[in-house]
């Protein structure tokens, strides 16, 4: 008996298997759902799992809360969350799966920025409202009408608050020279513009302006160079891993600039938990803040104390919650699940979230956010704007302990 028939048999066998599989997907999707289903994907495994899981918890906390109150439009809400394995291509297909197979009523916002950048055009084509962090300013400039950043994670705005505060510092007390180290990815790229603009305005010389590709092998030479050139201001625009290396190297080399700004790595709970005292006095920005006096924040903090054993909920947990709040208000405001109606309502009305009240412009963005945070004694404090300040900024930075 020749074996080519076997090959055919195997192939047929597998083909039939595939057909059955596809059919079972069909059947699965055909079962009608009573609750409002909100679908999409998050990176629950792989590179971005840490943040993905925080966002998931924020969304689920929101769902639990709204279901206790009787649901959305009187219907309970339910999530259909896929794990995209931190893969952008998968995030796109899962968005399509949620929309066309699960026939979800609403789409939730994804992470990270590269995934959001690729999902935004899909949401636009399918005419689905997509409330997410977005992929920084460039993604909001592509002319999408269904995308909202409520609030966005906007690198371009991240240091705005810090610089506005710095402007109030007497000129002779401001730093003179800055060392800027930026990771070479979309987050890093979106941070540098405002640094250029503001340092020029405030008369701060940029002595070092370097990019690096992740992973950073070692931060010691970078810090040594900054120390040699006597830079009294350090921008460490990186994620957690490289951010930590910068701080540890700075401490080891006893390099003590007047101000350290750590763009995005310092906003995760691990920064305080793992780095302890060494992570203190680092400035950063934020889009929402757990001590702000907006309704809901206290409940989230209470939950975080129980769930994560930390004071003040983590940023990404808040993001997950706030995006759902925004979407829900669009639904309740327009009293419908029609995506275009939700969009139009969101574009023309003011919404209330844990990040405050906001209205959206043509790009789907709220007013620029100018929060500046500093970590003081193991607590994230809001140091700018003045009307919401929770602590006075510690400046210049005290010596390393």
């Amino acid at each position: 008996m020749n074996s080519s028939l076997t090959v055919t048999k195997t192939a047929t066998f597998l083909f039939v298997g595939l057909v059955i599989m596809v059919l079972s997907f069909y059947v699965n999707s055909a079962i009608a759902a009573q609750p409002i289903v909100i679908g999409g994907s998050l990176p629950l495994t792989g590179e971005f799992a840490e943040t993905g899981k925080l966002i998931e918890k924020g969304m689920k906390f929101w769902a639990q809360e709204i279901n206790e109150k009787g649901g959305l439009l009187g219907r309970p809400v339910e999530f259909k969350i896929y794990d995209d394995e931190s893969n952008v291509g998968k995030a796109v297909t899962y968005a399509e799966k949620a929309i066309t197979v699960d026939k979800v009523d609403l789409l939730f916002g994804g992470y990270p920025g590269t995934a959001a950048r690729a999902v935004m055009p899909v949401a636009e084509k399918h005419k689905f409202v997509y409330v997410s962090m977005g992929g920084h300013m460039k993604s909001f400039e592509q002319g999408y009408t269904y995308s909202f950043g409520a609030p966005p994670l906007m690198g371009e705005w991240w240091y705005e608050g810090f610089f506005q505060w710095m402007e109030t510092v007497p000129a002779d007390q401001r730093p003179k020279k800055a060392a800027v180290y930026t990771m070479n990815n979309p987050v890093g790229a979106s941070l540098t513009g405002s640094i250029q603009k503001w340092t020029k305005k405030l008369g701060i010389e940029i002595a070092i302006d370097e990019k690096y590709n992740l992973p950073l092998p070692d931060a010691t030479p970078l810090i040594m160079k900054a120390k040699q050139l006597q830079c009294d201001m350090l921008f460490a625009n990186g994620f957690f891993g490289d951010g930590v290396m910068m701080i540890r190297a700075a401490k080891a080399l006893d390099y003590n600039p007047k101000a350290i700004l750590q763009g995005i790595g310092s906003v995760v709970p691990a920064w305080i938990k793992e780095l302890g005292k060494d992570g203190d006095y680092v400035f950063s920005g934020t889009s929402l803040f757990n001590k702000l006096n907006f309704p809901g924040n206290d409940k989230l903090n209470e939950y975080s104390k129980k769930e994560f054993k930390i004071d003040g909920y983590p940023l990404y947990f808040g993001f997950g919650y706030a995006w759902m709040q925004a979407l829900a208000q669009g639904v309740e405001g327009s009293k419908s699940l029609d995506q275009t109606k939700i969009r139009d309502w969101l574009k023309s009305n003011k919404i209330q979230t844990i990040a405050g009240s906001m209205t959206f412009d043509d790009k789907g963005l709220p007013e620029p956010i100018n929060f500046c945070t500093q970590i003081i004694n193991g607590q994230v404090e809001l140091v700018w704007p003045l009307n919401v300040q929770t602590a006075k900024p510690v400046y210049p930075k005290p010596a390393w302990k």
Partner: protein
Amino acid sequence: MNSTLIIQSLISGVMMGSVYALLGVGFSLTWGVMKVINVAHATFGLLAAFFAYTALQAYGVDPLISLVVSAPLLFLIGCTLYHLLIVRITSAKAVIVSSMILTFGIAIILENLMLLLWGADPRLFTTSYTSKVIIIGPFYFQYPPVIGFLMSIVGVTLLHLFLKKTYLGKAVRAAWQQPDASQLCGINLKRISAITFGLAVSTAGAGGLGMGLLYSFEPHSHNLWLIHLFLVVIVGGVGNVLGTALAGVIVGVITGLSMAFLPYQWVNLLTFGLLMVILVVRPQGLFQSEI
């Protein structure tokens, strides 16, 4: 260009490279002796790092001391894995290929078990010596990399002595050089292979700890580590313990020098580019393949 910065960059590179070498020797050994490419090698290292992290957080045990428990444990895991799984693929047509698929599966399982057990948050070793530093002239030696460097020297030397001086080690080398003849001489190839695999996995534990001293780690970090492993082992010559160690230092020097002379943006690119050149010029690695 200022010379302090160049030398400091070189120091950084060498420290870093030596830890890669420690992580790499075991990888090189299984590859050389058994023709098994253990893609999960770095994952075992990561497992040891997480183990040490828990010991440090819960009982204040220094990461180095936790190795006393984790290294033998990993040795046992390695031996068991060999008897349960690896041994079954040694009869495949292409052991190298099969072993990569098999251990790729193991790596995925371990990574996600770690994700379940420890969560996705990044971790750091924070010990009493974390930000201590030795200053010699204008140069700074941070404690954690120095400890990693010393660990690497001790680890590589021990492995080298084991292979050269002990009966068991000689048997391993014999099994690698002359599999058939050594079997005739009464060397039990299966047993030797199990021991080699266990040994390799436990050196991965030491290497993982070294990486943990230098960098933060999370359940997916092993993917990144693995790439550097491949580089170090290939440059050093597969199966060559001392070669792997030297290659670690060479990779470190390349990285260090490019950090000193180039914009940082181009450092990683140059490292990979230069390794390509090295491979093209010396297709068998820099050092002759032998244990």
